């Protein structure tokens, strides 16, 4: 297990380095650079700017400086908003996104897993067919369509819930559902197929022949193993919810990091784009590593892998 985790850890570090390097070189390669304006800047001022941002240093030194700053967790200033740093932007807006994202993760698991179990136990009955039909629809509807539909029906037509703003519980309901739609459907499909597989295993037959009740077989024996694929999906799930938040936060005008990211893409605030990209990547890679860790703890087959090799 230690070797497996070490390997995962090394690829995590490498992945973060790849993203950091990409952001650096993309910043350098951007046409015109971040200081390009419609109006020409006087050369003397340009020289001042370049000196203060060390743009005249050799590329390798700039790269090394950039890496050192990233390690010290200094993502630099915004080029479009005076006096705001990327660090500030992240600490101001990320909590909102985290709250929304966590509730979406929670919702997708708490609906997806039971739906998957029910349809596996009622395989090919109407409950199964209904759940699987809904889940195919769920994975086929992009989050912005889902968001728009919810907004149109519940906010504009019925007037039950607000269509924008943030702060109270009622503001969270629609965005959370919009965000959780896709992962919910996916979790349901995943749980169903792994539950079906587990129910055909020998130890389930043993449990049945011991005369255990259906309840005990499902909850004590089958459920744990059938949730392993769901744990491995947690990484992509969080990634999907994070990128989905760009769309949903934009549509519901939620002051989270996602909406800020889209705004900075639209007004080409390059340092903010790179900073948030780096932050999000760090977050995802770190969470993925935690998921791997959890996975090895849960599944003894992985724990024993080194011994077999």
């Amino acid at each position, binding site marked *: 297990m230690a070797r497996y985790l070490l390997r995962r850890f090394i690829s995590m570090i490498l*992945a973060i380095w790849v993203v950091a390097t990409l952001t650096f070189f993309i910043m350098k390669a951007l046409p015109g650079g971040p200081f390009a304006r419609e109006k020409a800047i006087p050369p003397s001022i340009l020289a001042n700017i370049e000196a203060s941002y060390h743009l005249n240093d050799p590329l390798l030194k700039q790269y090394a400086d950039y890496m050192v700053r990233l390690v010290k967790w200094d993502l630099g200033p915004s080029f479009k908003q005076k006096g705001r740093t990327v660090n500030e932007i992240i600490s101001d807006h990320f909590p909102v996104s985290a709250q929304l994202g966590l509730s979406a993760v929670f919702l997708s698991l708490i609906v997806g897993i039971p739906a998957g179990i029910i349809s596996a136990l009622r395989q090919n009955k109407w409950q199964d067919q209904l759940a699987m039909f809904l889940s*195919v*629809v769920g994975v086929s509807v992009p989050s912005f369509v889902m968001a728009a539909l919810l907004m149109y029906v519940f906010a504009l037509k019925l007037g039950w819930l607000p269509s924008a703003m943030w702060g109270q519980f009622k503001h969270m309901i629609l965005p959370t559902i919009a965000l959780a739609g896709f992962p919910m459907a996916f979790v349901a499909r995943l749980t169903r197929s792994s539950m079906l597989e587990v129910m055909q295993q020998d130890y389930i037959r043993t449990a049945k022949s011991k005369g255990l009740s259906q309840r005990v077989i499902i909850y004590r024996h089958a459920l744990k193993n059938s949730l392993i694929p769901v744990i491995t999906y947690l990484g992509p799930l969080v990634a999907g919810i994070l990128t989905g938040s760009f769309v949903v936060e934009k549509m519901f005008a939620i002051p989270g990091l996602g909406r800020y990211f889209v705004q900075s893409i639209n007004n080409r605030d390059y340092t903010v784009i790179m900073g948030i990209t780096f932050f999000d990547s760090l977050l995802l*890679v770190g969470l993925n590593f935690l998921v791997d860790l959890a996975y090895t703890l849960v599944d003894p087959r992985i724990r024993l892998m080194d011994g077999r090799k």
Partner: protein
Amino acid sequence: METPVNINDFTPVAKDLKMAQSIARPSTTYWQDAMRRLKKNPLAMIGLFVIIFMVLTAIIGPFLCKYNYSDQDYTNRLASPSKEHWFGTDFLGRDLFVRVLYGARISLAIGFFASLINLTIGVLYGSISGYFGGRVDNIMMRIVDVIYTVPLTMVVILLMVLFQPGLKNILIALGLVYWIGMARIVRGQVLALKEQEYVLAARMVGAKKWRIMLKHLIPNSMGPIIVNVTLNIPQAIFQEAFLSFIGLGVAAPMASWGVLADEGSQAIQSYPHLLFFPAAAICITMLAFNFLGDGLRDALDPRMRR
């Protein structure tokens, strides 16, 4: 306790009885078998027909319409669906039906070509890694591990910021990034297949490595590859719509479904039809591909037979 066998108990089998032992039906190949199973799956067949229909309308449709995607009719802006404009008109008075048709061209083209690039890179990478094995495989798979750990959507966004929005650039960005899954599947297939006797036989008669790879290993991995492509196409369409929605899509006046949906979502309060039609187009296409992909997976993967 041995019972003696009496030879007289046995009679020679008559000729016509021998015939009864022969195979009654012509043997079916893997592909015929898969097609037969696919045809039994109504949802997958509906999906297939919807896709064919979509592709045909995307190709032929625009020629049959009296409007162009950029024709503006200022007296008739933001009109609701009518006989004149089936899907209504947008905020510049452009016919939405025609724009959705052109959008189908762009979105479907992105789906197909991005998957084609993924397919090429993934199959080459995976089969080389799997076939050569050993140290080559080890290094190549470590690289895949690292790429797999990198959040790919963020990389696509970075690439699009660098390249500037546009059809060709979206294709390049999506094509360059999402081949990892394909590479892993093909590698797994090749690893299993290269131990088979027919590969040994091919090696014995002196076939070159490339020939074995292209003529034996890749064709025999076709099932999982096709399933992966079918599920990759809607992913690419999804990604493109997502990129368009956050402002990194195809440039005006051409519009993909994602761009149209983005425009529509800004006016959802007053003009819901602007969002409804492109969104419906995206959803129907996704559904069709997902149904077909699921059906193909069940049909092509014998382990799924229940």
